[in-house]
């Protein structure tokens, strides 16, 4: 399908979803993050539903992918605001039963500290970090999702790591 095609008929729409769903899913999941209880699949569905309903508003000034990622960004941020944060924790039963309970607890506390610090980052920095380190997206792909040149993405990554380092030194608190 051509980038500028508007997939108004159901078959074209199916191809459109096939082309973009993976990238939209990674973007949405990274905005929500692994420690939130929001369902990325639900949000992706909302993104495509909104795109389908608003196709007539797409003016072709940018690529349809860029337009779709913008919708995904807004929808995911809206959902993130209402989702609860669930930081890593050790179930009490596993501590009682496991011989390596103490080790497990130390590991969970360390992960919890990182998770709390990541959650403190601004949306853009957190998303860039998670896209890179969690979903394994390269700089070029992040640039495509966020409509930013490679140099800018590298700069976002570097600043995000720096902010994270500072937060971790303060123990996850701003």
């Amino acid at each position, binding site marked *: 399908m051509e980038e500028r095609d508007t997939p108004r008929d*159901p078959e074209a*729409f*199916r191809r459109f*979803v*096939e082309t973009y*769903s*993976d990238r939209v*899913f*990674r973007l949405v*999941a*990274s905005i929500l993050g*692994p*420690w939130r209880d929001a369902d*990325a*699949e639900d949000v*992706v*569905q909302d993104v*495509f*539903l909104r795109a*389908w*309903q608003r196709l007539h508003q797409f003016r072709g000034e940018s690529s349809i992918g860029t337009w779709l990622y913008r919708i995904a960004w807004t929808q995911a941020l809206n959902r993130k605001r209402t989702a609860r944060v669930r930081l*890593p924790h050790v179930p009490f039963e596993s501590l009682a039963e496991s011989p390596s309970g103490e080790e497990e607890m130390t590991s969970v506390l*360390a*992960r919890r500290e*990182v*998770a709390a610090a*990541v959650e403190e980052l601004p949306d853009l920095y957190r998303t860039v*970090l*998670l896209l890179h*380190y*969690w*979903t*394994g997206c390269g700089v070029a792909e992040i640039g495509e999702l966020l409509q930013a040149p490679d140099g800018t993405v590298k700069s976002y990554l570097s600043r995000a*790591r720096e902010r*994270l*380092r500072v937060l*971790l030194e303060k123990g996850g608190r701003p």
Partner: protein
Amino acid sequence: MTDTEDRLREALARERKPEPGAFFAARVANRVLAEDRLRRGRRKAPWPLRVLGFLVLCAAIVFVTGTSRGFGNELRILALVPAGFGLWTFRREIGSEIRGAIELLLG
């Protein structure tokens, strides 16, 4: 690699990676199209039809509540047919809600 990166990678390694399954795209497309059909089905009927539906519904209610003496109770049950028609026309989304729910259930 810096210590911050190490810690971040270690923390994220234990979290489930966001990987859409093989049929993810098809599932999303099906759901969106079904939801869209459901929403389109919720559009109101044209106003003359809605007025007609409302009048038929009123007539059926008057008939059932007993102003038309002389008919047996069995006949009054027949009034449920125009009442149903009136209700369906006046509130057409009831039918489409049921259809949409079935479509969503069947995937």
